[in-house]
């Protein structure tokens, strides 16, 4: 069987493209890192790829606001292609800066010209790089991204603008549609404040999907936990499952079976 093709979309300032591609490779897919200019010049199409990954970094220097310029390119220059891609139920994952891009792109978490959620400055006012505990929620994502994931997993975050914020009615809507994928918790799985919730996200929201569960945006980096030795406690605890790899693998397996 042919390997699932993954496009890892990069631009000026993207900096997690290589490890994201590596993660998908370990997950059994065939990733290709492509500069957005190739799509803009029509040198490249999404044709046979099943997964689109928008990796972390500081796209275009995060000028204007985090992810804004990149999001506008998707929104105004690649609208037809992206819409087509999503309509076919193919998967999109936006990690860190990729998540920031998704929420400004006009198609996430809802298709709408008005932005309904955002990721703003951490409450600490600082860039924070740390490992966090995530509670796997009962959500639409259980069918795809978080299938068979344990109740609590760990992944690293590294961002200055990761505080999830939205209007109350949007929050109600994403709750109702079970779009909340993970929440920040402490090591026992309980709600807690900083630093367990590293940015002050409302309701400790880590990541969400679209109502269909096919588009997933999150602040932590699954691609940074695809081998055991990336885990900070690997010298203490030898029985480790790389949770980040499980998430990527889930996506690849879903694509194999359904797309």
């Amino acid at each position, binding site marked *: 069987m042919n390997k699932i093709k993954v496009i890892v979309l990069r631009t*000026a300032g993207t900096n997690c493209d290589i*490890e994201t591609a590596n993660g998908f490779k370990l997950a059994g897919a065939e990733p290709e890192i492509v500069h957005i200019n190739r799509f803009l010049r029509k040198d490249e199409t999404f044709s046979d790829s099943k997964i689109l990954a928008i990796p972390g970094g500081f796209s275009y220097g995060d000028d204007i606001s985090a992810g804004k310029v990149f999001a506008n390119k998707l929104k105004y220059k690649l609208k037809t292609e992206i819409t087509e891609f999503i309509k076919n139920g193919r998967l999109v994952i936006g990690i860190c800066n990729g998540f920031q891009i998704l929420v400004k792109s006009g198609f996430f978490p809802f298709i709408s010209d008005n932005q309904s959620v955002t990721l703003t400055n951490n409450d600490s006012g600082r860039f924070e*790089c740390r490992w966090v505990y995530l509670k796997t929620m009962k959500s639409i994502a259980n069918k795809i991204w978080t299938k068979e994931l344990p109740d609590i997993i760990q992944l690293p975050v*590294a961002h200055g603008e990761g505080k999830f914020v939205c209007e109350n009615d949007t929050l109600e809507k994403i709750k109702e549609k079970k779009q909340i994928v993970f929440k920040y918790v402490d090591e026992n799985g309980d709600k807690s404040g900083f630093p367990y919730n590293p940015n002050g996200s409302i309701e400790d929201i880590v990541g969400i999907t679209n109502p269909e569960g096919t588009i997933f945006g999150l602040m932590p980096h699954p691609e940074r936990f695809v081998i055991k*030795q*990336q885990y900070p406690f690997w010298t*203490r605890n030898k029985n480790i499952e790389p949770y980040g790899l499980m998430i990527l693998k889930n996506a690849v397996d879903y694509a194999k079976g359904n797309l």
Partner: protein
Amino acid sequence: MVDVKTIDILSADEAQLQEMSRKYLLSLNLEEMLVVQKYFKDLGKNPTDVEIETIAQTWSEHCKHKTLTSSIDFNYTKIGGKPQKKFYKNLLKDTIFRITKELNKKWCISVFQDNAGVIEFDEKNAVAFKVETHNHPSAIEPYGGAGTGIGGVIRDILGVGLGAKPIMNTDVFCFGPDDYPQKKVPKGVLHPKRVFKGVVSGVRDYGNRMGIPTANGTILFDDGYVFNPLVYCGTVGILPKDKAFKKVLPGDIILAVGGKTGRDGIHGATFSSLSLDENVSSTVVQIGNPIVEKKVLDTMLIARDKNLYNAVTDCGAGGFSSAIGELAIFSNGAKVYLEKAPLKYKGLQPWEIWISEAQERMVFAVPKNNLEEILKIFTDEDVEATVLGEFNNTGKLEVFYDSKIVCSLDMEFLHDGIPKRNKVAVWNEKKSTIKKIKSKNPASRLKEILSSLNVCSKEWVIRQYDHEVQAQTVIKPLVGIKNDGPSDAAVLKPSSDSEKGIVVSNGVNLHGKKDAYSMAVSAIDEALRNVIAVGGNLKKTALLDNFCWGALDTPEQMGEIVMACEACYDMGKIFETPFISGKDSLNNKYKLGSKTLSIPPTLLISAISVIDDIKKCITMDLKKSGNPVYIVGITKDEILPKVDFVNAKKQMSALQEAIEQETVDSCHDCSEGGISVACSEMCFSGGLGMEIDLRDVPVENIKSDETILFSESNSRFIVEVKKEKENEFNKILKGTNFSKIGKVIINKKFIVNGIKKKSVINSDISELKNSWQKRLGNYD
């Protein structure tokens, strides 16, 4: 208006020559000015401003290391000995380069010749490492100075061989105390806290945006750095072994890539050789834009792997004049058309374009046939690339502006014409006075040390750096059950299909205030201890030296730097660790009225080690109650620590073997605060207690508990041995100085039993942790 001035050097007398050097910020001394005058006398013409600036940049201390490469008449006296004499033809060559040459390690690929040192990683790849300083810019404008400091050293890695991919940054800072009284800070000097916060933000924003993990570093605080902070930035890169060397052929195109040229950073190279004072202009500081540099990185690696160019180097100090001037040495000449250089704004004079240190610029030597292809790679990703001229073999560096020649210099004069300096140095060994440790309660003294600026947790800084990006950091800067203990070194796993790794550590201390030799041996010992503590390989460890010195006006001051160089030679020889790259930043001093305030002589040693299996690495947090605790090394009563040349290497090699054989669960080196701090940190990082007995610590001439606990003797480690591997550990360490001193306990207490009395310390580890964390805990 383009205006190329002619400088009337021919008619100048000696006083006028010196005035000329001052007026144009040339930083050339009278002897050098006379050589320049003679060169133009022989040509029968006065130089243009472009020519004189080119010479000043090329001959700057920053580019030529005139002091450390000078010949030296050295007179020294050891305690109890007769006065002796020694002559160095070239101080660096006779000490630091010499040991590298003598050791002649096959795994050293390129040392002291390119923008970074290069050693072998595996069969296909090599690792490059470079550490730079950006002190004066950071003193004036901390955020921009530090950011462009890291930006600059990253470009050194992009410009080594045919270009390496940066995989890690390091940063080491020296600041004045953050609570230094504001009223003691003179006009024109920024308060240390402002410098500290600005520098951290600058490194954070540049490093994070470049997508390079900042995973190792330290901070020293001392009154001696109030007027002149030190900012050391390092970058490690990886490159294919067959891309470790460059060449330039006559006919190759000079291609400038990346940022545009502006008026920022003019005279950075020569400014670094002057004392700071309150009148310094901020145009000497560069303005950085990391995304421009990231785009250059992305595209140049594509071009490199397609073999589209013969050479690359970065525009650092001296800008185009140095970058093109240095590449032109390979071909023996170049022709440059300055009007082609893309500018940030109009109005720059040719000399300004030529020496501007505007950031994010690289210069490539491209064979004509490849020009079209390489230009497409750059323009495809919106990177500006401009043809500036052509390398040739005319023996001349010729610069044009609008078809008018503005500079024509002989390559030979430019690069070899600089007169050699001769210096006199003196050193008299001082008696090391014994530190009287006040008989205070050792437990409160321990807490005091843990909460001191130089020992306390630097988590506030470390968390602001993305130390995980690229997903290769397998031993992180913060470790332990809560990810907040102080790691001895960082370990990277740069290849997804091999278990090989790279260990990076550093050593730096304040002993230079009293004895530069002790300072240097201790810095090297510390860097090596940190390598060993995480499972590094002493047999494949290389060192980098970064000298930061103050005034070097007297023979005594020269004597200190000579002794530091001697220390590098001695330690390199004992541990068989070659030096692969280095840099010096002299004149770290501030003119306050008639007084000159110098920093304490400070040598930063960075170590890099290549290991075969990262799975054997360990961290410093205690792992299991019941495990025995050992000490390796002898504890002495000494205020200026020395290194035991007979035993130190034996100890470290044996410990390395014990870790490789997987007999050790955790290991931490003893540095500031000695045994007491090392054990405390292991306890609270691992969330376990420890009970030790000072009677079991191997000592030399010590009778007090306090001295054993707090002595800062070198070459010592606290080792948590796996209980079931204790015999094996003992067998491996046999014949070295080591001893069992206690065990890990489940009770969360650090208990120390003294020589005469029981439990001289009995502290909750949570209290110790609190002391360690509160000083820079939440720092806003």
